[in-house]
C-alpha cells in the first residue's frame, strides 16, 4: 500500500485532489440549491477553450483556464440579469461557443491531442508542483470567502427577494459567487476533467440532501462524501491504471445510489 506514495505524481494528485474535494461542495451546495448546476458545465467548456489557448501559447493551461472561466462567469451573470435573453440560453451560447473555439484552436495546433485527452477526463499525471501551490492558494481564497459570507450566501440562495429587501447587496454577492464557482471549476480540471466537473460539484450535495439535515450538516456530509470519493478514486485509478476523473465520479454515483435507496423511500 505504501509504495504508492513513492511516486511524486500520486502525492501531488492526492494533495490537489483533497483540496478540490474540500472546496467543491462549498460551491456545489449553492449551485444545486439555486438551480445553477448547468453553469458548472458551461464554465467547464469555457475552461477547455482556455486550456487550448494555454497549450497553443505554451502557458500553464491552469492560468488560461482560470482567466477564461472567470471572465465568462461575469459575462454570463451580466447577460442573465440584463433579462435581454433567457438565463439558460446565455449558458448554451457560452457552452457551444467556447467548445467551437476550443475545437478550432486544437485544429490549429495538431500536436497536443494526447495532452488534451487528460484535460477532458482528468489525469493526475498532468498536475505539476506549481499547480498544487496555485490550487492551494485559490482553495484558501474560496474557503475563506464562503466562511466569511456564509450567512449571506444561504439567505440569498433560500430567498433572493427577501434578502434584497433586508438590504443585502445581492447583485455583488451573485457576481462574487459565480466568480468563485469559475475558480473552482478551472482548478478542478487536472483531477476530474472538463467533462466530469459538474458531477464533482453536484453529486456530493444531492447525496447529502437525501439525508434531510440542517444546512450546515448537509454541507458537512457533502464534504465527507466528496473527499472520500476523491481519495479512494485516485488510489483505485492508480492501481487499475484507469482515468482518475471517471473513477471518482463512479464512486460518487455509487454512494448516491446507496443513499438514495436507503433514504429516498421516506
Amino acid at each position: 500500500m505504501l509504495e504508492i506514495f513513492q511516486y511524486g505524481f500520486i502525492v501531488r494528485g492526492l494533495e490537489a485532489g483533497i483540496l478540490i474535494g474540500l472546496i467543491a461542495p462549498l460551491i456545489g451546495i449553492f449551485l444545486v440549491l439555486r438551480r445553477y448546476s448547468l453553469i458548472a458545465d458551461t464554465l467547464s467548456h469555457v475552461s477547455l477553450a482556455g486550456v487550448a489557448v494555454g497549450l497553443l501559447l505554451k502557458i500553464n493551461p491552469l492560468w488560461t483556464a482560470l482567466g477564461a472561466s472567470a471572465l465568462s462567469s461575469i459575462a454570463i451573470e451580466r447577460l442573465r440579469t440584463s433579462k435581454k435573453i433567457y438565463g439558460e440560453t446565455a449558458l448554451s451560447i457560452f457552452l457551444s461557443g467556447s467548445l467551437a473555439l476550443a475545437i478550432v484552436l486544437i485544429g490549429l495546433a495538431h500536436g497536443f491531442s494526447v495532452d488534451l485527452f487528460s484535460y477532458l477526463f482528468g489525469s493526475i499525471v498532468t498536475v505539476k508542483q506549481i499547480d498544487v501551490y496555485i490550487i492551494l492558494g485559490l482553495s484558501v481564497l474560496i474557503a475563506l470567502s464562503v466562511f466569511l459570507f456564509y450567512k449571506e450566501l444561504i439567505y440569498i440562495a433560500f430567498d433572493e427577494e427577501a434578502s434584497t429587501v433586508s438590504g443585502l447587496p445581492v447583485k455583488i454577492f451573485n457576481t462574487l459567487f459565480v466568480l468563485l464557482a469559475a475558480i473552482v471549476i478551472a482548478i478542478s480540471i487536472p483531477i476530474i476533467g472538463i467533462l466530469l466537473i459538474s458531477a464533482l460539484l453536484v453529486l456530493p450535495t444531492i447525496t447529502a440532501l437525501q439525508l434531510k439535515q440542517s444546512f450546515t450538516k448537509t454541507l458537512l456530509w457533502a464534504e465527507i462524501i466528496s473527499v472520500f470519493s476523491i481519495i479512494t478514486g485516485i488510489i483505485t485509478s492508480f492501481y487499475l491504471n484507469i482515468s482518475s476523473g471517471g473513477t471518482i465520479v463512479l464512486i460518487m454515483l455509487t454512494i448516491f445510489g446507496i443513499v438514495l435507496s436507503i433514504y429516498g423511500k421516506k
Partner: protein
Amino acid sequence: MSINHQKNIIEVEKVSFSYGNVEVLKDITLAIHQGDYISLIGPNGGGKTTLLKIMLGLIEPQAGQIKLFGEKLQDFKDWSKLGYVPQKAINFDPLFPVTVREVVAMGCYGKKGLLKWLNKKDQTNIDDALAQVEMTKYADRLIGNLSSGQQQRVFIARALAGKPEVIFLDEPTVGVDIKTQEEFYSLLTHLNSDMNITLILISHDIDVVTNEVTELACLNQTLVYHGEPKKFMKGNYLETLYGKNARFIDHNH
C-alpha cells in the same frame, strides 16, 4: 414605542408603472401611517403585488417616487425597519435543507451587517420571534416538513427577528385552510395592536380582511378607494373593482 397615527411611514407619490405597453399602476398616491393595519385588495392584475414591490424597492416605477420613514427610497438605508413575508406558500423549495431556526435567523442578517456573526442578543431575538408565532417546539424541524400554515408562521417569525416597525405580507393565506387562516389573522391582530407593528397586507379574502384591518386600499390600475373598511362596504366599490356580478362568497357554510 409610542405610536403616532398621524406619522407617515410610507408615502407613495404619483407612482405609475407599466410592463411594456400594459399600464399596471396609474398615478397612485397613498400614505401609510404608523400603526396602520392596511390591506391592499383588488382584482388580479390590478397592481397589488407590483405596488408592494415598488414600495420595497424591488422594482422601479417609471414615474413618481416612494418615501420610507420620510426619506427617498434611493437614500433609505435603514432596511431593518422593514420586514417582508413573501408569497411563499406556493413558490418555496420544500427540499431546501434549512431548519426553522436557520430560517428565522436569516431575519437578523440584514441588520447584523457583513462579516459579523450572530451574538446572544440575536439568539434571544430569534427565540422571541419563534415564541410569538408559537413555533418554538418546531425550531429544529426542517422547514419543508411543516404544513403551509406553519411555514407561513415561520416566515413571519423571520420578519419579526429583525425587530421591524412595519411588515409587508404578500397574500399570506393562499393555500391554507379556514381554521389556520383564522389563527393567522389573530396573530396579525396581535402583532398590530399589542406589538405596535404596522402591517401592509395583500389579500384576496376581501370578506375576511374587511373585518380585520383598520384600512383598506383598493387597487385596479388606479387607487379606487382608500379608507376605513366600513365605508368601503357601504359604497359601490366592489362593482367598480370587479364588475357588476361581484358578490362575496361565504366560506363558512
